[in-house]
């Protein structure tokens, strides 16, 4: 028999065989397995037992509205649902048109909403949450909306350009819906809170600090000394100051510096502070990516007649930004968690509202439940972001190796 026709050796392994090889291959490994296994079981029994048995989840259920939207008036809540529905439809359409990365996004947003709905409906935890029907219907409707839009997108095939414009339009639309404009009654930002505020702060911070950071990174490498010095100074000063300080400055100093008629509200000030802070770190990440681009890329682009703007836009930045996706997502995950710091200027985002709820006499002794709930909410958001970034890396890495 010739070599080429031989079948490869079988690599299939039974579960028992796998355990013997990987978990109990020696006395030491058996001991380690036993120890860690025991610890895990002990943890599961205790934490699980607490979560199902002792924990008084009604503190979460009774205050669910506060956790989700703060003091946003119930009569205007439909605007938030409408906003969510628009975002769900856009996500579904994008998944149909753009492919892989956005599809992950669509799957995870719809799965997340389904999961939340399921958590609310059945026992043992679900029955504890009273304001169910509208919430469950809203969540289920949204999850269905994602996939209805996906199917519609597949059938109609709208051009990519339209979707890009659509996404850009969602930004003003979100503000119109959330804060009110024209016929919609205004909902003052002092009433925004909970998850709504957390997500708004993080989203605005990410969307604005990214382009600002890219500009700063380019500025730091600019041939014009004034631009270079200013960018460098900005980056170094911001990186040398804690976010808390910047939030305080934005909150207290800004109104003092601006003339009296200009009143920027407190949420906008916090958004500004977070954006300015985050931009300096984005800039340093992007600078790392820019440094990794070989000189030959610039030379080839210049030789083709591309000016420096076109060279950056079409040759350098696409490569540099791709290589810094992991670092930037890490940064944005920190940003999401750092939004909790705005409590110190009196804003009640998720953590702040949690503390406010704990201050009520009815919530006495429910600290653990509230903090576990908040931690779980942050974990889900951060985990979704990091998963999306892995997907993004994989699809965008196609041409780079």
């Amino acid at each position, binding site marked *: 028999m010739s070599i080429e026709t031989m079948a490869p050796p079988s690599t299939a392994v039974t579960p028992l065989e796998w355990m013997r090889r990987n978990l109990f291959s020696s006395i030491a490994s058996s001991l380690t397995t036993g120890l860690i296994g025991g610890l895990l079981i002990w943890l599961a029994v205790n934490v699980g037992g607490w979560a199902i048995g002792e924990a008084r989840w009604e503190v979460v259920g009774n205050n669910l509205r506060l956790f989700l939207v703060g003091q946003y008036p119930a009569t205007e809540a439909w605007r938030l649902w409408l906003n969510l529905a628009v975002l769900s439809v856009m996500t579904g359409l994008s998944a149909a048109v753009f492919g892989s990365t956005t599809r992950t996004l669509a799957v995870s947003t719809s799965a997340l909403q389904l999961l939340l709905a399921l958590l609310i409906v059945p026992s043992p935890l679900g029955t504890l949450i009273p304001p169910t029907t509208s919430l469950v219907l809203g969540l289920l409707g949204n999850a269905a909306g994602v996939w209805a839009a996906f199917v519609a997108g597949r059938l109609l095939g709208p051009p990519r350009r339209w979707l890009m414009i659509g996404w850009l339009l969602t930004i003003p639309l979100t503000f119109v819906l959330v804060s009110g404009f024209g016929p919609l009654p205004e909902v003052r930002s002092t009433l925004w809170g909970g998850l709504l505020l957390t997500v708004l702060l993080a989203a605005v911070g990410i969307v604005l600090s990214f382009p600002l950071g890219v500009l700063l990174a380019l500025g730091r490498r600019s041939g014009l000394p004034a631009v270079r010095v200013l960018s460098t100074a900005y980056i170094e000063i911001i990186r040398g100051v804690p976010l808390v300080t910047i939030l305080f400055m934005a909150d207290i100093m800004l109104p003092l510096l601006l003339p009296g008629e200009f009143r920027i509200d407190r949420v906008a000030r916090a958004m500004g502070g977070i954006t300015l802070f985050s931009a300096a770190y984005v800039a340093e990440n992007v600078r790392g990516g820019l440094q990794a681009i*070989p000189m*030959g*890329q610039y*030379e*080839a*682009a*210049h*030789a*083709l*007649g*591309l*000016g420096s703007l*076109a060279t950056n836009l*079409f*040759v350098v930045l*696409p*490569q540099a930004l*791709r290589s810094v996706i992991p670092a930037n997502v890490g940064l944005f995950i920190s940003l999401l968690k750092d939004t909790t710091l705005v409590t110190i200027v009196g804003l009640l985002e998720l953590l702040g509202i949690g503390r406010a709820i704990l201050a009520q006499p009815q919530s006495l002794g429910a600290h653990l439940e509230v903090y576990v709930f908040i931690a779980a909410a942050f974990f889900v958001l951060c985990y979704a972001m990091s998963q999306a970034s892995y997907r993004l890396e994989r699809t965008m890495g*196609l*041409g*780079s*190796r």
Partner: protein
Amino acid sequence: MNAERPAPDVPEAERGIIVARDVHKWFGSLHVLRGIDLTVQAGEVVVIFGASGSGKSTFIRTINRLEEHQQGEIFVDGIELTNDIRNIAAVRSEIGMVFQSFNLFPHLTALQNVTLAPVRVRRWSRDRAEQAAMELLIRVGIPEQAHKYPAQLSGGQQQRVAIARALAMQPKIMLFDEPTSALDPEMINEVLEVMRELAGTGITMLCVTHEMGFARAVANRMAFFDHGQIVEEGPPAQIFEAPEHERTKRFLAQILH
């Protein structure tokens, strides 16, 4: 300065598409180009050769201003290379360049590499640019690789994409800086073949290369660089059969064995 100004005090007949006069260049205190005079007529193929470090790359790169010369003057198609950005842009749009290390854009497919400049600089529609790009890829013999990324192509294929990319801007002049010296031996010929075909179309070519077979067959003229100067210049027959200078003889003996 007027972009259309012709090279002054040069008789009409001597005016070339590339005119370099007494070009000097220093890197720090290192005197790399020490008075280069070279005139290339439209349609000529000129091969530059010489020892490593003699300034061949530096000189060829001053012609499209990837390097700045510090003394002397360079005219390309009557446009003088100065610090005026408009002149530089005008000159670059007439010159295509092919590099030793290809320098393809790794995030773009072969086709996108070729269409980038026509779409972004010439403002062609995407359809028109893609049609022209496919014709060029057919010309360099790799239309079936159009939708692959550079990393998925062999060295010879990459260099042919790079040639197509440079040709996409419809340049009057092509600069080649050792286009085959990063290639495995079996791929050198496929690139030289494309260059040979190109030379037949009447485009002006300035090639730094040590492929003496190519030079003998295709070049109108050869220039030998030594320590930042052109020591000897002439048609291939003269350079190969009767070199005047001792250093030219020695160098040719080395590379021809």
